[in-house]
């Protein structure tokens, strides 16, 4: 009986202590979590990636040769990448084809970035890709060339009074 009483008092006591601790929740649209680096990148010369968030892709038109390796890498995974004709003529891109990514299918594994040997594709910190239509999720090469503006500054801070997103 005394064991039961002390057990319940201990549980209540632990709950009361948490009134004084700081709130851990991230207030999402107002605060955004900060990530390391500038997004996931891959260095084909060493064969090792660079740590970062796997978010929306970024395509460099002046590096892309239209070799379709990203599309082939995606074939067995999500089939999100399609090669489409682009109007702008690049010297290195004879066929004028570049990847178009369907984010309704993409699983953000980043294997397309690993497959690109020309430093043309990398992933940025942008993860807010919601759209009102399925067509809105298909990003054309022109849309992928725009570097997204991200404002992320919240980090986990651990103090004596508990952890919080500051």
């Amino acid at each position, binding site marked *: 009986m005394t*064991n*039961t009483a002390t*057990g*319940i008092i*201990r*549980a209540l*006591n*632990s*709950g009361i202590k948490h009134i004084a601790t700081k709130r*851990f*929740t*991230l207030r999402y649209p107002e605060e955004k*979590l900060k*990530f*390391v*680096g500038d*997004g*996931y990148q891959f260095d084909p010369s*060493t*064969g*090792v*990636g*660079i*740590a*970062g*968030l*796997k978010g929306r892709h970024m395509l460099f038109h002046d590096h892309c040769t239209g070799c379709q390796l990203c599309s082939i*890498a995606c*074939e*067995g*995974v*999500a089939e999100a990448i399609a090669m489409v004709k682009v109007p702008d003529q690049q010297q290195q891109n004879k066929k004028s084809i570049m990847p178009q990514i369907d984010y309704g299918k993409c*699983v*953000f*594994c*980043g*294997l397309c970035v*690993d*497959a690109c040997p020309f430093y043309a594709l990398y*992933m940025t910190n942008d993860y807010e890709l919601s759209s009102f239509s399925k067509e809105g999720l298909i990003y054309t090469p022109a849309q992928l060339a725009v570097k997204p503006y991200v404002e992320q500054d919240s980090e*986990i801070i*651990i103090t004596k009074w508990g*952890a919080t997103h500051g």
Partner: protein
Amino acid sequence: MTVELPPGLALQKVDERIMTLNVGPQHPGSGHMRIIVQIDGDYIVACDPDPGYVHRGEEKMAEYRNYITNIPHLERPVIHDSCNALYPYVLGVEDLLGIEVTERAKYVRVICSELNRCIYTMYWLAIYGIFLGHSTMFMWPAGDRELLIDLMEKISGARVTHSHFVPGGVRNDLPPNFEEVCLRQVNYFEKRIKEYAAVFYDNPILISRTQDTGVLSREDAIRLGTTGSVLRASGVDYDLRQKEPYDVYEELDVHTNVMKEGDSYARSKVPWLDMMESCNIIRQALQKMPKSGSVRVKLKPNPKGKGLDSVYKRVESGRGSLGCYIVSDGKVEPYRLKLSVGSFRNLIALPYLLKGEKLGNMPSVYWSLNYWPVEADR
């Protein structure tokens, strides 16, 4: 002509006392599966677990994809434990292709694997808490899990489906200044989970609900072939990290947690104790890890196996032994790939545990088996 009907659909002899009850698959307390229980008043007479509602054919799909594109698929059965789900596959492919992994990559893998074990166990603990009606135990693990998800996000760039392990090492090196951040958050995480004792594990209400329910004896646990925390809660000291060390586990001091009772309480406590052990392993690995060096061996674009060959590798996942059997015939795709998962092996104990229990004890026994329906169905 008689037609064999699946269990549950077949007409049963009407008995005035026995009632057949379907728990699931829509019921939130069952996960993606159905448990057919026959009850006499408040007592369970017989129980027939019926998995298979989320079968996705992962094993067959793997035969049509090459060794690299299989990676995002094979972690999908358990997204919360995705590094451990990939681990046996990656070890097996390395064996088939004859790749030697660098020392630093092995340590990074161990850290990722232990972080993932904690992430999975916290998710499981949150579900276990809410189905015992303890909503604080749902909120706390779901929140504290964020500390480790943040670490995995820093390492791999994804919150749950990391796709981080590849044959030949890991995809990318640790970010700069990671050791310090990891140590700080893991230490705080350990401090937090120790607080769960007062609210949950030493709580007399929880103890009265879970103690002496669904007792699995040591002999039965071995005979039924259960693994992981279910086996360790029945008094068998068996952990693959200790008994068959893979990667760098033999250089680390791994301590296993064993309880003798074999009831729901012991089965729910062993994973919690394992999480503290995981924090210990992470700290050891951070200390012993080589400070620099490559983490990935460069492979040819489409690696091939060397002729007819097969390999079986297993690791200790959050739910017990997780094995992967790969047969290669020298092509870019595996010829056969089979997974042996801990969830499915633990489910076999459910009919034995529930016989004679009260219906109200079903959630505490069912969830204490550390069962993950999606993994069991593959």
